[in-house]
């Protein structure tokens, strides 16, 4: 890419263009999630109006397992990035698909959880708790889905005989995004599920 020669020709920070852009995007994402979680906290004091309380609904062991799965996907992402850096594209591809698989597992868990809750009577319109809960977890889930799509498409271009991401999103930027989405889940899990 052109970034290498431009750095020599210009007064630059030394951080590659794409990485800096990803950090800037993530800083915007962090504010996005901060506002999202604040929204939940703001409405938390008003939950009594609904007929279902969070404590009755949440299955903490189940969600803990799916949270653990999402956290482990950060580990597999690190492995994939590591193998990519040492140019072992075969293993890098395996671990990136493993990451995507764990992401899909997490999403499946979320879909299962949603169906359970909807059957118990918690919908977006049933109470303010329902609105806030689906708002926060739904937007996080959307980010995971986008991440999984990125992982799958990126993974399909990595391998011994592939172009190995000469263009487009680099593995490093993708890893940054994925870790950010994971870390945000720790906060959401704590705020939404664990704190009574």
């Amino acid at each position, binding site marked *: 890419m*052109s970034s290498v020669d431009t*750095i020599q020709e*210009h007064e630059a920070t030394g951080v590659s263009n794409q990485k800096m*852009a990803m950090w*800037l995007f993530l800083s915007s994402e962090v*504010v*996005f999630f901060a506002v999202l979680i604040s929204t939940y906290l703001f409405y938390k004091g008003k939950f009594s109006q609904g007929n279902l309380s969070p404590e009755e609904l949440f299955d903490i062991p189940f969600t803990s397992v799916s949270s653990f799965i999402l956290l482990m996907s950060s580990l597999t992402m690190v492995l994939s990035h590591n193998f990519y850096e040492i140019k072992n594209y075969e293993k890098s591809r395996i671990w990136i698909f493993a990451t995507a698989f764990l992401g899909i597992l997490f999403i499946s868990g979320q879909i299962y959880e949603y169906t359970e809750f909807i059957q118990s009577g918690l919908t*977006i319109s049933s*109470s303010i708790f329902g*609105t806030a809960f689906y708002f926060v977890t739904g937007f996080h889930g959307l980010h995971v889905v986008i991440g999984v799509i990125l992982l799958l498409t990126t993974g399909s271009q990595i391998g011994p005989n592939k172009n190995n991401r000469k263009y487009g999103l680099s593995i490093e930027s993708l890893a940054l995004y994925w870790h950010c989405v994971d870390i945000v889940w720790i906060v959401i899990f704590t705020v939404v599920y664990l704190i009574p």
Partner: protein
Amino acid sequence: MKTKSKTIYKRPTQKSKFVNLLTTVDHKKIGIMYLYTGFTFFLVGGLEALLIRLHLAQAESTLLSAAEYNSLFTVHGFTMVFLFFMAVNSGFGNYLIPIMIGARDVAFPRMNALSYWIYFFGALFIHSTLFIGTTAPPVGGYLSEESNLFSNAVAGGWFLYQPNAGIQFSPGTATDIGVIGIIFLGVASLISAINLTVTTFNFRAKGLTFMKLPVYVWMTQVVSFLLIFSLPFITIALFSVVFDRQFGGNFYNVAMGGDPIFWQHLFWLFGHPEVYILILPVFGIMSEIIPVFSRKPIFGYATLVFAGFAIGFIGFGVWAHHMFSSSIQPLAQAGFGAATMIIAIPTGIKIFNWIATMWFGKRNLNVAMLFSIAFLINFVIGGVSGVLHAVVPSDWQQTDTYFVIGHFHYVLVGGGLFGIFAGIYYWFPHVFGKKLNETIGKVHFWILFLGLHLTFLPQHWLGLQGMVRRTWWYDEGMNIEFWNLISSIGAVTILVGVLVFIFNWIFSKRKGEAAEFDPWDGRTLEWSTPLPPPEYNFYDIPKVKTRDDFWHRKYAVDEDNRSVSKGKHDEIKKYTLATTLMDNSHIHLPSNSLFPFITGFGLPFLGWSLIFRGTFMSFVLLSIGILSLLIGIFGWILEPEHE
């Protein structure tokens, strides 16, 4: 990879003018496209405002119906803030930033094109509210059922207060289209902000360290940070409205425990930084024009830059001054009032910097400078009436009256628009290689100046007399007819001024005085190119030694600290013009790409399919949207930046 992509899809080239328009990634062309589109929406928004003023010219007017009036002031606000102002600022930023820092293009040329196309299709999406939007009178409401172009558009004010803009009181699809359209525009602004930030950080010419950057670049940088950190607030806020309106959420449904005040907090947490997003680039434009036409370096460069950062920072802490009449605690009111007074200080620093730059300078009172001086006058008037709102009891008296309308139009029209016109007169030769006509320009300036004060000064008095904003009807004999009439006459005067400007634009583009190199004896790097600049901007990437480097190539400083010409003007000019004829095959520029256009094209379809969901039509719309996003994004990824 390369051979494969060539067989299925031939990369667009610049041969056809129309194809080039759709596929260009040149930052200058994209900047000009932003300016033209933005200015078109300025005319649309201006005509909407004119209709409002014509309606209010006399008491008990029936020119517009109440529903039309509500839609007109809402669409006027959307158009002017999001479609005109932000677009024109983006246009200036796109055109100027790379060329001011000695770069050949932005960091991500195709992303730049993408942000333009998302803005373009987002703007069309918002205006589709006029044609496919529906509104229905709320249950028990006073609005009569009618259907025409304007009464079906989004209504509820540009800040869409809940629950008034909720599903209960604003049924129909019009509001949804407005809300989702602004989400699209937010995406465009975010991409553009990230792109310009990376460009400023990584593409500066050798030697152009941060404290040597032109002030305009600094101000746009502050705006980029403001966008990056404030857009999430409006995105969440708008999505919460989509949740309420589309999926039956309860965020603003008071009966279910929702809280409408939360919307106000979210909106103004974005909305106040937004005010600075609009005005800071104009501060930057002022800081470029005033030194050039005073023939002095900018006074207090560092204070100007840091004042800009202070404004950006404090701008996040004053949002509740828009909400003093809401139920917020007295202590919070006192705190936000104090913060609002404090933010006047960095703004004041800037005003004194500009005055001190002009002081003892050899001022050249041409049109760009006239607009700049008028900017200072208008902005001080608008600023002083703004600080009045920091006094909470005074604000209770003025809020939601025409006093507020007068205040922010002084800032945005008298400040922002005048600054933009100054910028247009100043950089027009750079874009087209011809100067705008000075005589017509002076006529334009004085008509606009008169029109501004005629329109907005009486609105302060109307407001203090108690005329409420967004009011469709006022009875005769309330003693406010006279100033309303004057204000409407002023609005027509502004129209005349703008028409003179359009005439000047067309006239000067054809027959203007030619300017092939450095017409203003400029200070910054953008004037060191041939005019209009070639596609690669700089034949040699400049090497910078000092602030205002181009000036110091032409002038030395004697013992009394006065500038003395080095007598090298002709030599520099001759060489620069000669470079246009030299071989430039070693300069690699990014190639044209169609994929940003295709990606942007898909977004409105996704929006429409959400709004009309559950029908077969929505399925078709969804398919078109997803298909064009897929083609756009994957084509993009598989295509190298340049070949």
